[in-house]
């Protein structure tokens, strides 16, 4: 039963107040995109056993989507940040690098 901190509200809430939303930082492909790019956007998932960037909505709170970096093997949460970005904050990446030196990076 996870706890995550909503970066908008500043409160740490439990999983039941949140709605999970799958892998973060996916690039949308629309009309004109190749079959491969479109398939990749909708289906190909990293699904790593380790550091995962993912979407959560503070559904029972402010209703906002935010992003989290979380280890799927230990459930450690490295940090959360607002969804209005195309990549994770640099300091979060630095923190993960320190905690998981063999981590392959977020891309």
């Amino acid at each position, binding site marked *: 039963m996870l706890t995550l901190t909503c970066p908008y509200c500043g409160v740490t809430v439990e*999983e039941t107040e949140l709605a*999970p939303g*799958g*892998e973060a930082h996916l690039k949308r492909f629309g009309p004109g995109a190749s079959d491969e790019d479109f398939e990749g956007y909708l*289906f190909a*998932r*990293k*699904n790593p056993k380790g550091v995962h960037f993912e979407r959560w909505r503070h559904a029972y709170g402010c209703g906002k989507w935010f992003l989290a970096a979380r280890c799927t093997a*230990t459930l450690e949460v490295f940090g959360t940040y607002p969804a209005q970005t195309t990549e994770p904050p640099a300091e979060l990446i630095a923190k993960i690098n320190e905690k998981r030196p063999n981590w392959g990076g977020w891309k």
Partner: protein
Amino acid sequence: MALRRYSMFAVAREALRFHAGWERAWQSPAPKKRYDVVIVGAGGHGLATAYYLGKVHGITNVAVIEKGWLGGGNTGRNTTIIRSNYLQDPSAAIYEKARSLYEDLSQDLNYNVMFSPRGLLMLAQSEHEMRGYKRTVYANNLQGVETRWITPSEVKDLVPIVNIDGPRYPVLGALYQERGGTARHDAVAWGYARACSAMGMDIIQQCEVTGVRTANGKVQGVETTKGSIDCGKLAIVVAGHSSVLAEMAGFRLPIESMALQAWVSEPIKPCMDVVVMANLVHGYMSQSDKGEMVIGGGTDGFNNYTQRGSWHHVEETTRALIETFPIISRLKMLRQWGGIVDMTGDRSPILSKTPVENVFVNCGWGTGGFKSIPGSGWAMAELVAKGEPGPLAADFGLNRFKEGRFIDESVAAGVAH
């Protein structure tokens, strides 16, 4: 290596000498340098694949390698339900193949897997659900799957403990599969393992794959914690960790790994002879031969490799089942556990060739893996042996995601099972 047959007579004979004469059910060999086929994953699906490779296709130079103990993944963690009342043709075909193989599996393997066709019903608790299940019955009748629609009073006759007049969602009828039921999950893995071992196949436990070796887009072998093993063909059958193995082989799958939980009550005397699924309220329950009420619900919604799910699912499903079966309120929950399931983009499985030549995947069974084991193994063996899918696997290829050709069962089943 001839199989020493199990029978009542053999047990009686051994009883006289305190069972000192029983042999190993399966051998524990060191890996050879090369196999025609290496199957990663000694769960039900991997072992069944090996078994039918040998039995149907005559390929026995096979290794099944397993990072833990055989049958220790989802095969040993599920709620043992067997059914084939699926809506879409490809699903009905492979699950019914599995179910029909289960009918004779004990005799085929000479290992009692305790297939118990005790009957399975899915309660309809809304008009919408009722229409969906009636549609399924009509589809099943054309698919050669025996199911029928039954009335609330027939439901009550089959399941006296069900509350058909629930204040919230009265039971409007049910989709009934008389030859659905359960089997002893561990025994399925053990029975296949014993039979594979007897065919001379190597089951190598405590052997983790650390890399997949390829050259010119073609598989060469695998690196493992017990050394390097060459292979002609590689079958990846590792539910829960499919993405991890695919990553080693250099491709991505339309899969996310999520936790699915089950729990049991303390054992009580028999009170429910059939399997009941109540999909509207997200719960299902059966009673094991030991007397425990076996319960399962929905998956978590986030990626998770821990084999532990979130507690709130236990509460949600239990409350649904108390509404459905009021007598269970004073029973006590004995044990809860979790497994990691592969959830695909359309919630249907993948049996497919991959971007790497001679690498095949069998994954994505989501919450329906156990019931499909024999059919999945049968179809996968055909795919691996021939290099191309047969009719059972044809629609389950990876190409369907690019084409938009989904096999969507959510219409008929909104819940894990």
